[in-house]
């Protein structure tokens, strides 16, 4: 292939360089013009006006991950349903059947999680 193949990446490299310079320039400018007045309260967590009363790094129930996993199930379903909906008329009945099979397989997953007790909050 011609050298153009690599030359076409040049614009991306230039853009990257420009980005870095731009950010450095902004930070530098803000350094130059800012006023410095540090006091401890500036370091506290901003909690919509309420005084923070404990460390924000507190442990929370790991059980949430199961809901995150189940969410993926529906997420993937939605990702595939949208393009299907767009060409629903062209796909016709065959497309409908195929999608129903796909959803059935996902339903198997949901039922599995259900029967295994993943939806119970212990």
């Amino acid at each position, binding site marked *: *292939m011609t050298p153009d193949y690599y030359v076409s990446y040049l614009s991306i490299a230039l853009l990257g360089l420009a980005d870095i310079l731009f950010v450095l320039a902004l930070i530098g400018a803000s350094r130059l013009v800012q006023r410095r007045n540090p006091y401890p309260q500036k370091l506290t967590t901003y909690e919509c006006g309420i005084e923070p009363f404990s460390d924000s790094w507190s442990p929370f129930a790991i059980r949430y991950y199961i809901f995150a996993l189940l969410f993926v199930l529906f997420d993937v379903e939605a990702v595939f349903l949208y393009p299907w909906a767009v060409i629903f008329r062209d796909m016709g009945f065959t497309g409908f059947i195929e999608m129903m099979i796909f959803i059935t397989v996902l339903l*198997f997953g949901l*039922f599995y999680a259900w*029967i295994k007790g993943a939806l119970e909050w212990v």
Partner: protein
Amino acid sequence: MQHDLLAIIPELMLIATALVILLIDPLLPPDGRRGLGYLGVFACAMAGLSTWFLRNEEFTAFNDAISLDRYTIYFKALFLVIAVIAMLLSEKHLELHRRLLGDYYSLILLATVGMMVMTESIDIMTFFVGLELMALASYILAGFFRYDELSVEASLKYFLTGAFASTFVLFGLALLYGITGYTNYQQIGETIAAGNVPGSTLVIAIILVIAGFGFKVGAVPFHNWAPDVYQGSPTPVAAFLSVGPKAAGFAVLIKFMTVILGSESGTWVGLIIAIAIVTMLVGATMALVQRDLKRMLAYSSIAHVGYLLLAISASGEEVAAFASASIMFYLAAYALMNLGAFGVLVYLSNNSSFGNRLDDLAGLGKQFPWAAGILTVFMLSLAGIPPTAGFFAKFYLFAAVVDAGLAWLAMVGALFSLVSAFYYLRVIVYMYMRQPEQELERSGERSFDLNLGLGLAAVGVLLLGLYPSPVLDAAQDALLMVLGF
């Protein structure tokens, strides 16, 4: 439309069974779960039957995403045999560890489907989906004893290195697509052969793909996960992982190296030869010092990967058909003997880690003559001593390498094979010539499944050793029809 689905009937059967097992497993009482393994074996048998009926078909399906041909059929049959034996070996072990769950069988079936999709795909996207299906299922399988620290560690290590390797493969594939504009193996191969691609990018793509496959099959310097994973994961899972993903990896590697990169063999043959030699060296020498049998088998499987890579390097030559056929035969022999060797470890194990150390084998010949005898067969086969499958496998492999004009390489391979004989024979010495230090206490529980699985593997190893021609002919047939040799 019907045509498309026809090509994947075995896969559909396995997927349906996996889903059904998942669904009925939680509804069953704990002791009712024994039947699930048989359901899995039955599904594999049915899938095998449908594969048999499809054996003379040859067509591509799903818009050239997958192809059904003799090559695919050969490997599908091999994967089904691996899955059946692995499932038969599992039940007793799972029960001992109170982890007899249907999920296990579902995961084995899904991993098998992944291996099938990998092998039958002729499109890099479909291949990658198959690879990930297989890999994700095996990560979970490695950590199936989730109350066992070693098992969890194995799972995590396998996941991290495996995911890393997948990105390598994916990046390599993306580059191949980037420089050729195609996702179909044949079209990529033709575009590369036409010489119309930037050479440096192609070299990077080749290196990335080889590195990724190196991780997956456990070739040096990408092998470090293997001993820890095999040692930590449940023994039947280690048996499955040591043969299934490797067979699938090599099935794809043959296709990749001939169909896609066949015209570029000058670029990669040297690299593969170097990897093969280092792999054999590390595998053979590290296995010498292992006292843990699972680790020993892990390094031994690394050494076997080295032999297989020798033949891959020969497949860039004109005798490619013979080299590839010898790899296919070797994979079948290797699958049976390695499953069998791990199977005997399952047979000996109780619910602690007993039976995994070399010293545990002392006096086995007297106490369990059958188990000792069968382990002797597998060890002889792994060492490559006739009349076992391992002998013919190595014989054909080295013959192919010599035919390719790489006689010195075959010599190196034979040399390492000689070294490896030491640690296989040491196992036999321990079983028959050492006295146990204390009175042995093994779980005397008999399991029909386990005996059947071990019996199948042993009979297979001996049959392939005494009468190898049907399988070898099938392998050569497959290559004649498919890769156009």
